[in-house]
């Protein structure tokens, strides 16, 4: 089929206003929120904006027929290049499918289309006394479908868990165009947990067209504390002490001196400028427990050298304390023209040593690094600051961030806590996983997408094409028993 014929077919499916193929119009779809310095830009052949699941399914069938890759995309806020059209093809943008279809408080679920914005969902649920727990930093822009694809986290996943813990079921278009429902409003659906497999699969196994999310009851009481520490080390010890005391905060966030300074310059959130580090602790639950725990956390912080502890009691005060944290990435523009955000998780006890290593690397590579992270669950976000126009700086950033990743993996951590592997980190996968591990993952991919048309060149490292892996495995088995491979 030639390009014009394909264009006509696509236009018949999504309508003329749902199809983009003019280079100027496609420009914005050459990028996502990953830095093009590292991820490059990749033009899809077509971008379609379907409005129904049937349209998504029809586009996928057509792509299959002509052998073109399919790349799902929400708001494009992903940081790992997951929405880039590496091999061209058809980019399916789901932002026009943005209706909340059903809210059922009594049974604790809602059904939404994938293009619903994360924050809009929680805002809609709030008056009914519920919320959608995953709250990534990009929640004002990112979509629920994107959250599903990346198994997104956010500050509150310390207590509430990540996206996968809040997805009850999915309507998904599989790579052959078939549309199925997985899971449902009640747990323990018989069979393989396809919902669990699909969440976090970064659009490589299917395209989600409806999401059944768990509704979480708003807590009766909430308190937020801000504690100022001389340095990261003491703040880390306070973190450990809080967890060791059997308290499970809703969120436990840390910011270092550089971040505090940037945030204060930009937004005047009222953080203590002199602090070497601040901890932001949110507690929620039953009134009496929150009141008790707030006292205990404040005391633990003081015992671990906090020289100031503020407690926000009203919603306004709480929002103000959160403002600085939520605006931290945006404030980085004050410090440097560019930043590279590393997303990695280490076991929490390894945090102080990891932070020391990050500091060393910052000196070694002559790159300032700001730190703002989810201390409670060991999810680091070193922001390596640079200027892409300075010669050699981009290369230094890459080397430095690779060193950070390597160190984190060496101490038992992982490559990505919440941003995904996408295109950007796929070749680091061999740092964490063996060939056997990756072969099993390739087997999963092959079971869903034998033709490898769904979001190609993502998640699995270069060289882990499914077909090749299958042959290798059979050969290995033959070799083991000294048998002939036929």
């Amino acid at each position, binding site marked *: 089929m030639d390009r014009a014929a394909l264009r006509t077919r696509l236009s018949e499916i999504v309508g003329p206003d749902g199809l983009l193929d003019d280079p100027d119009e496609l420009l914005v779809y050459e990028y996502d929120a990953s830095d093009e310095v590292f991820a490059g830009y990749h033009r899809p052949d077509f971008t379609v904006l379907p409005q129904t699941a049937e349209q998504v399914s029809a586009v996928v069938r057509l792509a299959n027929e002509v052998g073109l890759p399919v790349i799902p995309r929400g708001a494009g806020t992903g940081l790992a290049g997951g929405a880039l059209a590496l091999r061209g093809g058809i980019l399916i943008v789901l932002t026009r499918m943005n209706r909340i279809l059903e809210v059922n408080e009594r049974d604790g679920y809602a059904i939404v289309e994938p293009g619903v914005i994360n924050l809009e969902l929680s805002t809609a649920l709030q008056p009914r006394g519920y919320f959608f727990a995953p709250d990534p930093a990009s929640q004002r822009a990112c979509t629920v479908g994107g959250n599903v694809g990346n198994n997104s*986290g956010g500050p509150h996943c310390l207590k509430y868990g990540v996206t996968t813990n809040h997805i009850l079921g999915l309507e998904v278009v599989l790579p052959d165009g078939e549309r199925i429902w997985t899971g449902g409003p*009640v747990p323990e659906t018989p069979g393989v947990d396809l919902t669990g497999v699909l969440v976090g699969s970064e659009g490589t196994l299917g395209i989600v067209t409806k999401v059944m999310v768990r509704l979480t009851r708003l807590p009766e009481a909430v308190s937020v504390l801000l504690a100022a520490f001389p340095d990261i080390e003491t703040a880390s010890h306070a973190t450990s002490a809080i967890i060791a005391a059997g308290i*499970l905060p809703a969120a436990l966030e840390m910011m270092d001196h550089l971040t505090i300074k940037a945030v204060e310059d930009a937004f005047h959130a009222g953080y203590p400028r002199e602090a070497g580090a601040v901890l932001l602790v949110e507690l929620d639950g039953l009134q009496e427990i929150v009141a008790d725990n707030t006292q205990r956390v404040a005391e633990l912080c003081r015992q671990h050298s906090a020289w100031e502890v503020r407690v926000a009691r009203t919603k306004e005060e709480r929002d103000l304390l959160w403002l600085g944290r939520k605006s931290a990435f945006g404030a980085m523009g004050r410090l440097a023209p560019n930043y590279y955000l590393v997303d990695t998780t280490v076991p929490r006890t390894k945090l102080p040593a990891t932070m020391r290593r990050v500091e060393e690397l910052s000196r070694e590579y002559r790159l300032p690094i700001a730190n703002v992270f989810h201390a409670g669950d060991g999810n680091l976000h070193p922001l390596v600051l640079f200027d892409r126009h300075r010669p050699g700086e981009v290369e230094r950033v890459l080397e430095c961030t690779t060193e950070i990743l390597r160190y984190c993996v060496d101490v038992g951590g992982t490559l990505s806590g919440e941003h995904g592997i996408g295109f950007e980190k796929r070749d680091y996968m061999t740092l964490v*996983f063996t060939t*056997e*591990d990756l072969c099993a993952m390739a087997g999963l991919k092959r079971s869903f997408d034998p033709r490898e048309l769904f979001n190609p060149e993502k998640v699995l490292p270069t060289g882990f094409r499914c077909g090749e892996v299958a042959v290798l*495995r059979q050969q290995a*088995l033959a070799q083991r028993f000294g*048998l*002939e491979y036929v």
Partner: protein
Amino acid sequence: MTGTTRLAPDMALQRLGELGSRCDPLNYTVDGRQPRVAIRVASPEAVAEALAVCASGGLALVPWGGGGQMGLGNLPERYDVALDLRELKAVVDYEPDDLTIGVQAGCSLAYLATILSEHGQMLPLDTHDPERITIGGLVATGLGCPRRFGYGSLRDLIIGITVALPDGTLARGGGMVVKNVSGYDMMRLHFGALGSLGVIVRANFKLLPLPEAQETLLVTFRALEEAMNGALAVRGSQLAPTALALLAPGTAERFVGMARWTLAARCEGPDGAVRRQAERLRETAASLTSDAYVLEHEETLRFWSSLQGKLAATPLTDRIRVRIGEVPSRLGELAAQLVSVWDSVLEDLVLDVGSGLAFATLAGTVEELRAAWLDLVAYGRHATMLAAPHEVKVGYDVFGRHPEGVAIMQRLKETFDPERTLNPGRFIALL
């Protein structure tokens, strides 16, 4: 088939014997069927090797923990080898300050709970038979407990997995950190897949602090409808009980000595707070004719672990146990129907109102039980026969109506277990 390799079955059996110690096959009966050999292996590598040997020899293998949940599954299509994993029982990685643990599959829940409680931590699991039930068995069957309402299930807490595959490899997914999106979610691929895609040799979990105090509020009601209203009022409140179950009168009589519909709400937290929470729950759940009691800490632990005996997939020889998924707001209707149609054979009925699951145990003749299943399979959102005598299972899929996506499950099976070595026939759609 291209690439197929074959070992003579006898040679395969002999090789298996070299991989571990032989056990008495009589102790490894599945649905009335005995394996040709039973071996107990002591390392993950030996498990992987055993799988490769079986795959190459065309032998069918059933992985075994304590056997406490062996009631779940269709009749085995073939059964040559029982692979006992209880020697794989080590806690491999436990740093209490990280609130994570990595354990081998054969670790019993009793041992695990002991280790964790020494550090004031827990996995929020209940079991009536903690010495016997293994962590691997719980992951493979995917069966939870009513504390899912407060803490999530093991599915929510699993952060890493290692499985042995029929091609003789060991494959890991996830890791030892609580937030991890590196690669596909292999944990959930195997969670609840009944060891049909790989044999779980290790699993990692995030842990929770052990609550200082526990109490259970029991509220008894004259009528089901009244009880259900109380249960739903609590469910919709902000009072955050960690488990919420409704016991039918017969079951309640056996467990707490009151032959009335009995709502049990579990409270866990700091000492004083728990007391106040139970009090507030009572105000929310109570109706004009209800009575309320409180079970103290030790009684609470005993109550919920013995109740779990009515929710488990323990093999049964003269009864069936059926799990039905239904949204909480319709559980009352479902219970009413069950009671009215099957009262003559209905022995126990527990509604996990927090989760949206009903567990019915029925006692009767094979014919009665087969008739009951033919009816119950159509109930709710899904229905599964958790345990039944093999005569009752014949000709049925114990996993009930098939969900959508069975074709994908079949492809997963073909990819991961092309020779159909693992639990052949036992999983959904006779995979």
